[in-house]
């Protein structure tokens, strides 16, 4: 099984000028990024919505790739979004699922049926034309050129080691360097969004 940090690190050479939605993995990405204005580290505005955010960005900005790092807890809460993504079929959306099998930020309780869900199969069944699943970092690294060369939407499920937080929310170290408002302003400015 791979670690989220090494998975994100493997992705660095392929980022380019893509819009990147790190989902719950912003703390792993923030020190790797060389294009912060196009990073959308909003944290967790409301659970289950990262895929929708990525879809909206991909539809609005068909000229740019959108890299989305989702989690299995979020996807399980919103499985139906996969059908909407597949119907819209944005060719610029790359949907990575970081599957640690648990609700890591609440103490590590397992998600329902954690060991028996094949998310790539669910995505394929919903209509994603290209889907992958990996458990080892080496396999993931070797497949990245092919994955990033495919037209989207591509779905990539990665099984990772859970890194569990048990600190009460108020005592956790803040990893963000920008407020949510600053992320929004920086992104819209970088994209020239005027509406």
């Amino acid at each position: 099984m791979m670690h989220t940090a090494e998975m994100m690190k493997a992705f660095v050479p392929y980022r380019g000028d893509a819009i990147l939605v790190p989902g719950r993995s912003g703390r792993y990405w923030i020190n790797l990024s060389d294009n912060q204005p196009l990073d959308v580290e909003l944290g967790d505005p409301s659970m289950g919505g990262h895929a929708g955010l990525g879809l909206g960005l991909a539809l609005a900005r068909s000229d740019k790739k959108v890299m989305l790092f989702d989690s299995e807890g979020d996807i399980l809460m919103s499985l139906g979004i996969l059908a909407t993504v597949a119907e819209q079929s944005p060719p610029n959306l790359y949907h990575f699922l970081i599957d640690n099998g648990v609700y890591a930020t609440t103490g590590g309780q397992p998600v329902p049926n954690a060991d028996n869900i094949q998310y790539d199969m669910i995505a394929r069944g919903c209509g994603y034309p290209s889907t992958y699943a990996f458990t080892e970092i080496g396999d993931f690294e070797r497949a990245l050129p092919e994955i990033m060369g495919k037209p989207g939407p591509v779905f990539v499920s990665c099984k990772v080691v859970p890194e569990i937080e048990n600190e009460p929310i108020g005592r956790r170290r803040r990893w963000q360097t920008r407020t949510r408002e600053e992320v929004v302003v920086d992104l819209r400015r970088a994209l020239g969004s005027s509406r």
Partner: protein
Amino acid sequence: MNDMTANVLSPETMLAQIKKHGVTHVVYLPDSETNWLYLLMKADPAIHLVGVNREGHASSIAAGLWLGGAKPLILIQNTGMLESGDSIRGWLMSLNVPIVLMVGYRGWTRHGVTTDTVATYTERFLMAFGLNYYLVENDADASRIAVAFEEAERTKRPVVVLVGDEYHGFNR
């Protein structure tokens, strides 16, 4: 205009307002009586439809569209708005997304007793969330839709249009 047409909210009026205010994407889940509007939007190349299967998905999609420079509108029913509470809070309100939500007001009536509990809780929900709203019942209310769009832009907040004529205006 005769008495019949004056007393309905036509889908053509709704679409005209949507286009007048530069909406690029309509994120929607079919409502009880909005099929005529759906057909009109589907036939209009200026409108990109994004269908969802649960209303809670609409808010984050709309947030992404707006962040990317598009102008989305959400079209759902009040039942789905209640279901979407935390998504509206997190993806629209907390990100200051200036968006109009057109919400079918199922169960609303100007006359008699409200028997549908979703109507009972609709305006209470909006007040609890601090979301401003405008009720439209017929074509004469079209200017209220314009007010909602302008208010959303000015305040950088979601504004709701409650479509109170849901069981009449679209039901040709």
